[in-house]
């Protein structure tokens, strides 16, 4: 074949790489649009965000959020403190705003993506591939849904990913020159501690790192596991002592929730369907490493994280529990493709092999991009792009009702391969107006609202009363005494009650039903809120 012909054929993989980069940069832009709309939105978008803000406010005032739920204001947190402590300076500077935690979580996902890109780049030395691996993480439907929310899960994934990448670098450098790097190892342990005290689920990554460490250096792994366990345990005991036992009650006992096998099975299937290329490549590369070369930490991490994703089947858990496995699969995919490119680049393979692999890899990324399609279509430009890609430009979803009559499906300008999703559509002016309307209703009374979302009380500067899901968790474990709360409701001591999903314990809901009646139904973010006043 002539050199000119070869040159022309070489244009095909280049074009495909550019297309793949456009697709994933496009997802990144969409993620940024969604994040900036969320930053502007002053109420809860996902149930529970306001309570994370409340935790941050309590820390910023030098108080623990692990409290006695039996007494007014019946509030406690069920999450460890690191995420809230990281946001605390922003609350000191700017006050209690939802954007503070959303921004920190969003930046955390960018750091995770950068760590993934770095992990691939240091081995593969191809910027386009490293960029695609990092951007693929941000393009995941699950990361998109929750990455810019005031939730701590992806902040934990950031610590986990950085710890795993550092540990890999550390072991490789030590094995290359035989010098021990205990300072860097202590840094990895600190990152693991931060991950675990951001969210308890990080134990899977702790297990992965120590399993890998044990395979490579058994004696040293045991020697480091002892102080790590000691520090983790002492910190736990100190917090439990400092909170009179409410740390243990609220973060451990309250998290013992029933396991729903169907939920776990459904989420595994959905994860695989949405992330097929990443999942298959990661599994194949992990098997290859297991049987034909040395296991990398990334493979061990991926397998343990994937098994641990089964905990997504717990009541109250969900898709975000797959985020660690997704981060690991992005790294393994980037590394596997780097190896494949190096293999094909060998002069013995010749022009056609190299070209075929160079075409295959961006094509697989494009297939992956199509599988995880999600796009808000609230602007004419975004709707036009969705249409040009042959995707629908809207879906019809019935608003979520729990305390009011079912409603007809409504047009939602957001499409998502994950199916019907209440997360992902950027909140709009109507949602903000609805939130302000409920807040104004609460402001007409003199007391804080007994509300399932914290946002309305925050908006008018009133105290936050109750954390409904936490109360339900404790109730289901027989660890809360509702006497005082029920007496206050029976005496109609709250001027307003706001329900969204009826997450409160049954006895609380019963008391609300007897003493309060719905005055207004207000729809916000696809949920119908029941705004209630005391019965005459």
């Amino acid at each position, binding site marked *: 074949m002539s050199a000119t012909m070869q040159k022309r054929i070489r244009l095909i993989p280049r074009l495909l790489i550019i297309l793949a980069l456009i697709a994933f940069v496009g997802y990144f832009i969409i993620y940024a649009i969604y994040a900036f709309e969320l930053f502007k939105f002053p109420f809860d978008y996902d149930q529970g965000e306001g309570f994370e803000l409340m935790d941050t406010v309590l820390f910023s005032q030098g108080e623990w959020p692990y409290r006695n739920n039996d007494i007014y204001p019946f509030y406690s947190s069920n999450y460890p403190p690191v995420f809230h402590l990281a946001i605390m300076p922003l609350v000191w500077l700017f006050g209690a705003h939802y954007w503070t935690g959303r921004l920190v979580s969003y930046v955390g996902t960018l750091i995770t993506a950068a760590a993934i890109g770095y992990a691939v780049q240091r081995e593969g030395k191809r910027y386009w591939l490293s960029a695609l691996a990092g951007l693929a993480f941000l393009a995941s439907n699950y990361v998109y849904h929750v990455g810019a929310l005031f939730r701590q899960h992806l902040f934990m994934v950031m610590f986990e990913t950085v710890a795993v990448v550092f540990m890999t670098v550390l072991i490789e450098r030590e094995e290359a020159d035989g010098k021990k790097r205990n300072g860097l190892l202590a840094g990895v342990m600190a990152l693991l501690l931060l991950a675990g005290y951001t969210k308890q689920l990080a134990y899977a990554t702790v297990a992965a790192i120590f399993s890998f460490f*044990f*395979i*490579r250096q*058994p004696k040293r792994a045991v020697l480091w596991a002892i102080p790590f366990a000691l520090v983790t345990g002492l910190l736990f005991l100190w917090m439990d002592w400092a909170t009179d036992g409410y740390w243990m009650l609220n973060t451990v006992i309250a998290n013992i929730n029933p396991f729903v096998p169907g939920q776990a099975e459904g989420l595994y299937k959905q994860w695989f369907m949405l992330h097929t290329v990443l999942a298959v490549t990661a599994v194949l590369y992990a098997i290859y490493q*297991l*049987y034909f070369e*040395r*296991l990398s930490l990334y493979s061990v991490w991926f397998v343990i994280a994937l098994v641990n994703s089964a905990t997504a089947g717990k009541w109250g858990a969900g898709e975000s529990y797959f985020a660690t496995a997704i981060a690991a699969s992005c790294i393994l995919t980037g590394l596997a493709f780097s190896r494949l490119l190096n293999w094909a680049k060998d002069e013995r393979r010749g022009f056609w092999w190299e070209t075929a692999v160079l075409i295959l890899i961006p094509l697989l990324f494009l297939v992956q991009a199509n599988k995880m399609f999600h796009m808000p279509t609230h602007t004419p430009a975004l709707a036009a792009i969705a249409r040009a890609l042959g995707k629908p430009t809207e879906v019809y979803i019935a608003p979520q009702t729990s305390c009011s009559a079912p409603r007809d499906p409504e047009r939602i300008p957001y499409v998502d391969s994950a199916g019907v999703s209440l997360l992902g559509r950027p909140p709009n002016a109507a949602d903000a107006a609805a939130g302000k309307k409920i807040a104004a209703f609460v402001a007409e009374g003199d007391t804080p609202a007994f509300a399932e979302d914290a946002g309305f009380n925050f908006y008018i500067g009133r105290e936050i009363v109750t954390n409904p899901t936490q109360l339900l968790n404790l109730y289901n474990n027989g660890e809360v005494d509702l006497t005082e709360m029920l007496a206050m409701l029976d005496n109609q001591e709250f001027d307003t009650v706001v329900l969204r999903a009826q997450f409160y314990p049954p006895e609380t809901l019963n008391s609300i039903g007897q003493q309060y009646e719905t005055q207004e139904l207000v729809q916000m973010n696809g949920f119908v809120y029941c705004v209630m006043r005391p019965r005459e």
Partner: protein
Amino acid sequence: MSKRQVGFLFIGVGVLAIVGMFGMDMVGAGQYNGIGPAQKKGMIVSAGAILFGLTLVPLGDRAA
């Protein structure tokens, strides 16, 4: 560790888990007569660990 050692580790853990599950019955800790549903799942996982370990044993002294 070698691949063989990792294989033996998985086999050992799998065997210990099965012995532990039957041991629970012997001390009367189980809720069911015979093999209960949790034990059945545990046995399947343990058997999987043993089989996985067995595939690693032939790989010998190559570094894991």
